[in-house]
């Protein structure tokens, strides 16, 4: 991991500017769920190539439903709307979801058709700092290591879009901070568009170009994260006041009493 952090300046290059090309992902009028009070009630969302979007919201607001719809995993859910996603989409789940009966290497090559799958997978594992662990069983790794294997599995396919459903939710605080740095580096190197579902405001500000807050199945708030506001690799924002203002703003949008929540 140190190898990744070494090459970074105070403001990571990937965050300096949100791309402005035609959208890679477009969602229009997405409705999902049963009954009068659906899970998603008409969501519109665009994601540009290489853009990092964080999807915030209280639990039950439909953020995972939206991600699963984009991943094509909602076979049995009723709904309507238009979704355009690129061909190469990877999903990182909250649990690392490694096949327990396959080695670390086997898990990363899963679904890779090419003849040099092993070489690619070894390279991806080295990139997440797990070179030499190819032959281990998943249960022999720590939670953070398992999640790094999952990241390697996601990125070895060179996705245009990475869908991440609270990928660090089950990790301890220290590991999570390290994983933030790793994810930032990997995204800078591979430049996929990212949709990160999270309930952690600080995680969203630390990683995203743009933050979308979902409430009652609708997009309630959208905020761009200026580069100087986002937490740098060094761990501190250049514009501390702006950072705090955005944080309060988002917490308010999430329905948290800011006078109590802030410190």
């Amino acid at each position: 991991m140190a190898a990744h952090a070494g090459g970074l300046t105070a403001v990571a290059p990937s965050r300096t500017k949100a791309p402005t090309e035609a959208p890679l992902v477009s969602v229009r009028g997405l409705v999902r769920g049963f009954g009068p009070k659906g899970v998603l009630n008409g969501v519109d969302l665009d994601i540009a190539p290489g853009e990092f979007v964080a999807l915030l919201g209280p639990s039950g607001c439909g953020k995972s439903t939206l991600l699963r719809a984009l991943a094509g995993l909602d076979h049995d859910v009723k709904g309507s709307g238009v979704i355009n996603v690129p061909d190469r989409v990877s999903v990182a789940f909250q649990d690392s979801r490694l096949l327990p009966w396959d080695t670390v290497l086997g898990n990363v090559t899963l679904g890779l058709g090419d003849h040099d799958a092993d070489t690619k997978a070894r390279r991806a594992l080295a990139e997440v700092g797990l070179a030499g662990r190819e032959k281990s069983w998943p249960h022999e790794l720590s939670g953070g290591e398992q999640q790094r294997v999952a990241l390697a599995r996601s990125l070895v396919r060179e996705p245009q879009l990475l869908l991440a459903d609270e990928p660090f939710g089950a990790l301890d605080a220290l590991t999570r901070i390290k994983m933030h740095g790793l994810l930032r580096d990997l995204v800078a190197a591979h430049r996929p568009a990212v949709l990160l579902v999270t309930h952690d405001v600080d995680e969203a500000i630390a990683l995203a170009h743009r933050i979308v807050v979902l409430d009652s199945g609708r997009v309630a708030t959208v905020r761009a994260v200026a580069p100087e506001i986002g937490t740098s690799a060094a761990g501190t924002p250049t514009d501390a006041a702006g950072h705090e203002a955005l944080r309060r703003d988002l917490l308010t949008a999430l329905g948290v009493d800011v006078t109590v929540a802030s410190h």
Partner: protein
Amino acid sequence: MSAAAVVERTAVAPHQDPTLAGREDVRPTGRRLGPGRRRRLAGLLGPSALLLLWTAASATGLLDPRILSEPWTVVATAGELIADGRLQENLAISAQRAGLGLFFGIVVGAVLALVSGLSRAGEAFIDGPVQIKRAIPGLALIPLLILWFGIDETMKVLTITLGVFVPIYLQTHAGLRGIDLRYVELAQTVGLNRAAFIRRVVLPGALPGFFLGLRFAVTGAWVSLVVVEQINSTSGIGYMMELARTYGQTNIIVLGLAVYGILGLLSDGVVRFIERKALSWQRTLAG
């Protein structure tokens, strides 16, 4: 305060520290709830104890040889039967029947379980009849099988097959259906096709269930074998025992039982060995 230091050094290398030589390891470990580490050949302990008990009872005269022959008589009988070739001959034919029945039963059971587990149509057509077959004692089918196939090898192998495929089917099917849906989702997100999905997710996921079924199946194969060989047969271990009954040769009957016991123990050991190798990714109490 030195207690902590002692603990640490003891844990690292007690044999290298002369001041600690011969001292007890004082690591403060909690009580272990699992059965502990696997020990080599521990599985032979129970059968050996049983053998010892039998020998002791015979040697002290507690056990009348007319009721149960002495172990040494059984060993001597085995020597005689091996010398004139009868034991090998009958053992070979018995092993062939059990092996063939087991083989066909495994294939049929596993294929049916896959078809029934992977498609709703397959389940609708296969699962019901298999459950009905399960409800009918396998041995109750023998009269019908004799009418259909006579009393030759086909009937014998078929009886064993019918007994074997049920546990293979049931356990494999249960293992397959027990595969976590999350892995199915994963397979979809990484774009596995159906063949790769079966090879990388379904088969390895169903393997623990298959092996459980296999252990039932192996035992079941020997049970069916005894029955078909004692009812209508002119060869095999069961026939040998049945013949001995006519002449009141307890020693041969006991030898037959011992052979069945050894075969059962050996085959179960082989299955467990293969299972341990194939499922080395599992972390369970079995160790």
